């Protein structure tokens, strides 16, 4: 198993690229490429940055699982996947072909017309959500501005509550 978080993230990126490949194989070129841009180009980088910014103490490694959580997790997940699989096995009538194996491919123009026509509200709302999320993420990730009097520190020092500095000072005081 992979012990390093960064390896996990990169393998996750690879699997996202694989999903994009499946989209393209299914004839949905546009979706696959959009998936590549969003996941490989943006989310993977976000995750990797988040790992680097938050995982100092753990030296970028993953904790070993206890036997209990391991068994429970795999059992539940296996159960769900098994149910899906069984349901799938008893489904009939899914033999139709499409995409790369001969069927029609997704027309980007058609998708665009749908997005800009009948489903324009959904499209706009998605855009709005994205914008709001972006602004929210920026605000969340900004360092907290604390008033000078409350923190009693110089403004250009790290914000109050910063662990390393605060603990060290607390340790000296105690």
């Amino acid at each position, binding site marked *: 198993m992979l012990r*390093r978080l*960064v*390896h996990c993230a*990169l393998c996750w*990126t690879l699997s996202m*690229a694989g999903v*994009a490949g499946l989209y393209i194989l299914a004839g949905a*070129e*546009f979706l*696959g*490429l*959009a998936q*590549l*841009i969003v996941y*490989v*180009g*943006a989310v*993977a*980088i976000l995750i*990797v*940055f988040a790992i*680097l910014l938050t995982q100092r103490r753990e030296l970028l490694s993953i904790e070993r699982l206890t036997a209990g959580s391991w068994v429970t997790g795999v059992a539940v997940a296996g159960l769900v996947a098994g149910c899906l699989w069984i349901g799938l096995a008893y489904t009939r009538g899914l033999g139709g072909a499409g995409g790369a194996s001969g069927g029609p*491919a997704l*027309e*980007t123009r058609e998708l665009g017309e749908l997005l800009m026509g009948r489903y324009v509200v959904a499209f706009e709302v998605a855009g709005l959500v994205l914008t709001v999320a972006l602004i929210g993420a920026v605000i969340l990730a900004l360092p907290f501005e604390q008033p000078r009097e409350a923190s009693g520190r110089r403004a250009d020092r790290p914000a109050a509550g910063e662990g390393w500095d605060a603990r060290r000072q607390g340790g000296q005081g105690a």
Partner: protein
Amino acid sequence: MNMEGILALTGWGGLRWVGPVELFERGPVWLRDWAVGWLPEGAKVWAEGLIPAVAVLAVFGLLFGLATVAERKLLGRIQNRPGPNRVGPYGWLQFAADGVKMLTKEDVVPRSADRVLHFLAPIVMLAPVALSLAVIPYGRDLVAADPRCGLLFFFAVGSAAEVAAFMAGWSSRNKYSLLGAMRAIAQMISYELPLVLSALTVVMMAGSLSLVEIVEAQSGYWWGVIPRWHVMTPWGLAGLLLFMAAAAAASNRAPFDLPEGESEIIGGFMTEYSGFKYAIFFMGEYFGMFAVSGLAVTLFLGGWQAPLAVLEAAPSYGWFFLKLGVMIAWFIWVRGTLPRLRVDHLLNFGWKYLLPLGALNLLVAMVWRGLGGWAFPGAGAVRWLACLAMIGLPAILWGRLLMRSRGWGPRVYRYAS
């Protein structure tokens, strides 16, 4: 052999007399069909994919070698010195000597490096860039792959370069590498947006994501003289300028080459690379430059279209590579002229200047299309100037406004003064 006719293999092995114009224009396609024709039925589908791939890689591999020499020669000339002139005629075989040097150098991997990622990073850097060369139309019917979303494909595979930069920086276990990787990623992500926005303008006007169709949309001439390239319109001109600025940053070229910044962070994410792996990074960088230059040619400069109707006798791929050469020369000239930016200037420039102007340019293109219906005398000129003013004036005013704000103007040294 007479001058009008040359015996040529056309199509599936059929011989017929063709003129030299047609021979050069169709030659590569015939050659491919002829080579494929020899193969058994099962291998044909592979060969049809493989032959263009090998051809593109061979041509661009050679171009890479020549471009490194040309860059060094032109930079030398810009600095009033001759540049490499020892190996081969006028030094043009210098790249062979460089290649041998790179191949025979020791491949040093830091002891605490993550060996697998350290090994994979150059590959992940080069492979997607090479892939993005596949969708560029090099001539009439000369394109390795024409997916319906060629432009999107270009940007999608290009996004793997960020992952590669991170892999290289992180696996080296060197703080300079990691810092360089962070810079590189921040820069690539920031400049991807203006790049895509300026390309999007063209997509909107051409009505297609396929690069082949975008080139075909630029065929024809106004009054039989001025080619209908996108660069001849105000939004196209502005788009080209924006695109080239963003492209220089996205391919880590000077003056935006901070990720390598030899003098500041000793080589960025490539610090711990040597020998052939370094050569592959280098190759990836040049291929990236070729790819964005090719894309700029395709989107704005009419791709393989000839600039004049009478010049269409020359083969179309000749025109493409001529334009590509001009773009590469432009990149080299820029590198020889402009000093490297500071990192905050770089990000400010991308986010606060290029991005709003890219969005505005989209609007200008819309207006340009809307004004297409004017029919009074001189309407063309009025339309042209109006659209130019719409993008030009905000560019100037916004630039002046930004220059007045903090962090943009000349540097103020707090302690040194």
